[in-house]
C-alpha cells in the first residue's frame, strides 16, 4: 500500500550539546518513522528531548560550535545528516517545515505577515513578488484567517494569538511540504483556539497528504488526532504503538503513569490526582540503568543496573522495559 511508504525514518539519532560541563546527550538513540500522510504523535514531559528531536531533523542547531549529531535521519531515503548545509537549506521550508510553539516570538516583529509568508515562496519556488503575495493571501485564507487581503500587510503584533499561530502554519505550508513538524503548536493558546488549530492541522494533513509529527505533552490531543504515537522520556523513546493500544494497554510504567494522571470526568468524590513520583533528572545526572528506574514503582535491581533495549513486545507495539505491564 502506497500509504505505508515511509517519508521519514530516524535511526538511532543522538544529539549532543557541547557545554561547559562537557558533552550532554539531549537525545540518545531515538528511532522512529513517519509514513506518508500520517500524523505521528510525540509525547513526553518538558525536557524529554521532543523539541531537540524535532529541531535535529531540520538541523537547526549551530553545528560548528554547539551540537553534534549521530545516527541517521532518512528523508525520502536521503540521510539528512550527510548532505551539505546548502542542500539542507533547500529542504528546510520546502520539503520539511516546522511550526513553533510560541508564535509571537517565532514571527519576526519587524516584517509584515505577508512578507514572512512570501519569503520561502520567493526563495524556494522562485516566485515574483506579486505572485508570492497572491499566494500569501491564498495561504492565509486556507488557514482560516478572515479578511486575508487586509491581514497580509499587518504586523504580527497586530494579530491575536490564535491568528498568529495560523500565520505560522500558513508559512510552514506555503511550499507544500511533505513533512510538517508541529512542535507544541497549541501550548500557548487557550482551549477553544487549541481545538481549532488542531482541527486545522488534521484537515490540512488530509487535504495535502503530508506527514505530520505532532509534538505535544497533551495526551488528549494525541488521542484525537494521531494514529500512532511515541512516548519519550529523558532523551529516549520508551514506547511506540498505535494510539488505541497505548491508551488501552500502556506497557511502559512511564506511559501508564502519564495516562493515569489524566483526571477523568466520571471520577466520583474527592480523589487525589495521580502523579509520577520524583522529578526528571538533569542531563548530567542520568541514571546508569533504565532511565526511568528511580521513579518507577515496579523497578527491580536489574532495572537500576542494566539499560533495557527498545524492542517489539506485541505486534507493532514497542517498549523499552524489562517488565512491560500486562506481559509478565
Amino acid at each position, binding site marked *: 500500500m502506497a500509504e505505508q511508504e515511509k517519508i521519514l525514518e530516524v535511526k538511532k539519532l543522538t544529539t549532543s550539546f557541547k557545554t561547559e560541563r562537557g558533552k550532554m546527550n539531549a537525545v540518545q538513540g531515538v528511532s522512529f518513522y513517519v509514513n506518508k500522510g500520517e500524523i505521528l504523535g510525540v509525547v513526553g514531559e518538558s525536557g524529554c528531548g521532543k523539541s531537540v528531536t524535532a*529541531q535535529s531533523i*531540520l538541523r*537547526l542547531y549551530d553545528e560548528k*560550535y554547539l551540537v553534534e549529531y549521530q545516527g541517521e535521519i532518512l528523508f525520502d531515503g536521503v540521510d539528512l545528516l550527510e548532505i551539505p548545509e546548502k542542500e539542507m*537549506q*533547500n*529542504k*528546510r*521550508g*520546502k520539503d520539511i*517545515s*516546522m511550526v*513553533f510553539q*510560541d508564535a509571537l*516570538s*517565532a*514571527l*519576526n*516583529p*519587524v516584517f*509584515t505577515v505577508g512578507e514572512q509568508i512570501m*519569503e*520561502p515562496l520567493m*526563495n*524556494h519556488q522562485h516566485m515574483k513578488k506579486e505572485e508570492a503575495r497572491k499566494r500569501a493571501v491564498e495561504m492565509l485564507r486556507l488557514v482560516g484567517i478572515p479578511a486575508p487581503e487586509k491581514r497580509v500587510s499587518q*504586523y504580527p*503584533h497586530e494579530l491575536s494569538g490564535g491568528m498568529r499561530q495560523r500565520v*505560522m502554519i500558513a*508559512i510552514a505550508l506555503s511550499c507544500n511540504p511533505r513533512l510538517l513538524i508541529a512542535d507544541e503548536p497549541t501550548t500557548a493558546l487557550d482551549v477553544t483556539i487549541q481545538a481549532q488549530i488542531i482541527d486545522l492541522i488534521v484537515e490540512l494533513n488530509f487535504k495535502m497528504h503530508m506527514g505530520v509529527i505532532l509534538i505535544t505533552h497533551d495526551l488528549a490531543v494525541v488521542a484525537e488526532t494521531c494514529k500512532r504515537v511515541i512516548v519519550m522520556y529523558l532523551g529516549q523513546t520508551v514506547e511506540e504503538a498505535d494510539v488505541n493500544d497505548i491508551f488501552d494497554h500502556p506497557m511502559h510504567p512511564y506511559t501508564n503513569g502519564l495516562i493515569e494522571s489524566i483526571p477523568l470526568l466520571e471520577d466520583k468524590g474527592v480523589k487525589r490526582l495521580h502523579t509520577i513520583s520524583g522529578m526528571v533528572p538533569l542531563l548530567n545526572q542520568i541514571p546508569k540503568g533504565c532511565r526511568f528506574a528511580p521513579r518507577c514503582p515496579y523497578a527491580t535491581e536489574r532495572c537500576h543496573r542494566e539499560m533495557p533495549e527498545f524492542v517489539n513486545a506485541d505486534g507493532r507495539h514497542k517498549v523499552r522495559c524489562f517488565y512491560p505491564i500486562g506481559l509478565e
Partner: protein
Amino acid sequence: MKKYVVKRVLSLIPVLIIVSVVIFCLIHLTPGDPARTMLGDQASEIEVENLRESMGLNDPIVVQYVHWVGGIFHGDFGTSIFMDEPMYKIILDHIGPTISLTIYALLISLIIAMPCGIIAARKRGKSQDQVISVFSMVGISVPSFLLGMLLIILFSVRMKILPSAGYKAIVDNGFLKHIEYLTLPAISLGLMQAALITRMTRSSVLEVLGSDYIKMAKAKGVKDKVILIKHALRNALLPIITVIGQSFIALLSGATVVETVFNIPGIGQLVVNSVLRRDYEVIQAVVLVIALGNVVVNLIVDLLYGLADPRISLE
C-alpha cells in the same frame, strides 16, 4: 507622525527653560569678574564699577536673566566681551569644524564598530570575539587626549603622513584637505565611541540571534547571510540606534578636549577660551546651543525608532 513631531517640539520649551536657568545660574555663581578681566589689573576700582554698571552686572540676577532670555526671543544671543561680532556669527563660525569633526568621528566609530560587533556576536567565545573584546576594553579606557597625542607622535612626528594640528575649511581648501586635517582628531575622538558601540552591537546581535524568529527563519530555509542581515540586524538596530544617538552627543561635547589638543577652531575651543576670558555671554549662548543640539538628536533618535520598529507607533 506630524502630530507627534509637533508635540515633541513643544515639549522642548520647558526643557530649554530649565537648561537656560541652570546655565545662567552656573555662570553667575562662578567667581571672577568679567569687568575686571576686560579692563585688566591696571584699571581703577571706579572704572571697573562703571563698566559693571553699563554691562548691567549690578542689576538683580533675575533682571539679568529676563534681559538675556528676552534678548534671545529677539534673536539677540548677547554680545561677546572680546569678539566684536554678533553672537550668531561667532557660533556659526565655530560650529562648522565641530560638526564636521563629530560626524567624521561618528562615521569612523560606526565603520569600526558595526562589523566588529557583528563578528564578535557570531563568533561568540572564539578568538575573534576575545580579540575584539580586549580592543574594545582598551578603547573605552584610553582617554581621547592621550590617544590624540599618541597618534600625533606616530602619524605626524614619526611617519609624517598626517598633519599634527590645525584646521582647513572645506570652502577654502577642498574636501580632501579638510578630511586630511580632521582624520587624527576624528580617530582619537571616535575610538572610544567605537568601543562602546561595538559592545552594544555585540550584545544586541547576540540576543537577537538567540531568538525564536531567527530559528524560524532558518527553518524556512533562509540563508545564513540573509538571516543575519535581513532578520537579525534590523531587530538588533533598536538599542544600537540609542547608543549611536548618545555617542553623537558625547562626541559633540567630547570635541572640546580634542579640539584643544589639535588646535581646531571649533565650539569646544570657543568654550575653553571664553571660560578663560570670563566671556560669560558666549558661554551661555554656546551651552544653550549644545543643549538644543542634544535635544534635537534625541528627537531624531525617537523618530528613527518609529521607522525601525513597527511596534512603536508615533501617533
